[in-house]
């Protein structure tokens, strides 16, 4: 009985609400599977172009193998005018003890061996999960107040962004137990409302049937090969986001951070929080 009475209050005190936590962990799995199966698909033709069609003589990014002057096979990656020797990782790497010509190495692809159709099955199934859960979460963020309350920057945080950047660069973090800091909010907003939807849109624009349904969307992105390139670039920036995100978790008390994202954690009371932020403002 007391439980039911207590519930509204204890829910209010959660640092991360249930939908946030569910989405966070589901998304983690989706992104891992989508990244690894995506790299499997990329490996079927490890080159990227701009425009509608592929100008095979002039990809802006390409991974391949050549026979070096000493007779050894080298993996190379060409990015614009620059060529890098990436033997062992990109272009030429060993898979199950056997050296093979492949874009990304086997420990980054799903399945590890070259098997395009299996990569596509994994990718499209998890794409539906990811897009469905993402759309639900975006609706939740909009209508539950999560966006306004936890993610949107108040005027003071917009003004404090410059200082936030400097503090982050000095690895000086305020233990904001109550809420997110300005830079953090901005990166979450960018991921939730720009990067993730763009992944879905650029992904769909690689489908010839979707192109027939919405040719204007393809024009907006600059053609199918541009869509494929943007899909790859945003995937890369999401990997960068995850790396920085993990770094921040490690630097700001990893045990507490992970525990809170699992159990919800406890917020400080609103009063204490206001005091704290007031303290920060005047500091």
């Amino acid at each position, binding site marked *: 009985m007391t439980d039911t009475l207590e519930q509204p209050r204890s829910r209010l005190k959660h640092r991360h609400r249930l939908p946030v936590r569910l989405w966070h962990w589901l998304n983690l799995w989706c992104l891992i599977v989508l990244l*690894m199966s995506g790299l499997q698909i990329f490996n079927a033709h490890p080159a990227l172009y701009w425009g509608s069609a592929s100008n*095979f003589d002039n990809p802006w990014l390409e991974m391949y193998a050549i026979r070096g002057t000493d007779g050894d096979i080298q993996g190379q990656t060409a990015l614009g005018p620059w060529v890098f020797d990436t033997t062992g990782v990109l272009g030429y790497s060993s898979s199950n003890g056997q050296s093979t010509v492949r874009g990304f190495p086997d420990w980054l692809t799903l*399945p590890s061996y070259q098997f395009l159709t299996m990569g596509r*099955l994994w990718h499209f199934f998890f794409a539906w999960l990811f897009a469905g859960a993402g759309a639900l979460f975006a609706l939740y963020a909009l209508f539950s107040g999560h966006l306004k309350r936890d993610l949107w920057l108040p005027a003071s945080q917009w003004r404090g962004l410059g200082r936030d950047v400097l503090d982050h660069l000095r690895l000086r973090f305020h233990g904001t137990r109550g809420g997110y800091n300005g830079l953090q909010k901005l990166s979450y907003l960018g991921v939730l409302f720009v990067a993730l939807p763009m992944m879905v849109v650029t992904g769909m624009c690689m489908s*010839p*049937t*979707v*192109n027939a349904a*919405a040719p204007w969307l393809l024009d907006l992105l600059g053609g199918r090969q541009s869509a494929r390139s943007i899909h790859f670039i945003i995937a890369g920036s999401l990997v960068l986001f995850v790396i920085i995100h993990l770094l921040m978790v490690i630097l700001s008390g990893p045990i507490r951070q992970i525990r809170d994202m699992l159990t919800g954690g406890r917020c400080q009371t609103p009063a204490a929080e206001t005091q704290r932020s007031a303290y920060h403002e005047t500091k």
Partner: protein
Amino acid sequence: MKRSDASSADRRGRRRFLKRASLGMATLGLVGCDRLSQNEQVVDTLDLAEQLNLRVQRFLAGERGLAPEYPTSMIDQTFRPNGSTDPQASRYRQLAAGQFRDWRLGINGLVDNPLSLSLDELRAMPARTQITRHDCVEGWSAIGQWRGPVLADLLDRAGVQSGARYVIFHCMDQLGGEDFYYESLDLSEARHPQTILAYSLNDAPLPIANGAPLRLRAERQLGYKMAKYLSSITLATDFDDIAGGKGGFWEDRGYTWYAGI
């Protein structure tokens, strides 16, 4: 919905293939993630996305939504060929040596008037010319100008019977050895206004590398659907008894029947 029992049977078959193919590679000694790709239930579940893709994409594009067409300036000088580029089957070599004068396209199966058409007869039909983008399942794209009769016109001439649901394309090339290439479309995609049988690429007769004398263009599908080196077209209720039973050469090797994404 249209492909209820036939499709579930061929999907089961495809899963068996995927499992077998994966197990073949298991001898290499694999990590945990790969084990999942070999589990039949896992592959069954992943496979659900194909039906979802088909239904949602068909709904979005409609029966007649057109694939983008491009200006002449965007045509690629060489249209990258893929798969078979120089079929070695003796029958094909003979026909090619005679400039395909003895070649005929058969249209048979569930039709009222089976047809057998020469290249000249096909050229005499009203043709559609379209500059479209070809998307390979591997990820690259190429733009070319295709010309040929609209498949729907040929189907109307042959008179499709009410029981027919699929159009099956038989080819003269044996990709990678024994099996002849083949493909299938359902009637809705086969009757799409941009679905043509092309005898010309970039204003020249279709080169051997690109499927001479005649190839399918299904512009809302990936490249593997667009069968080259056509010899005949069959109208049928299903494709269970053809080759591996999954509706196409690559479908028999684990690729999805629906190739719209």
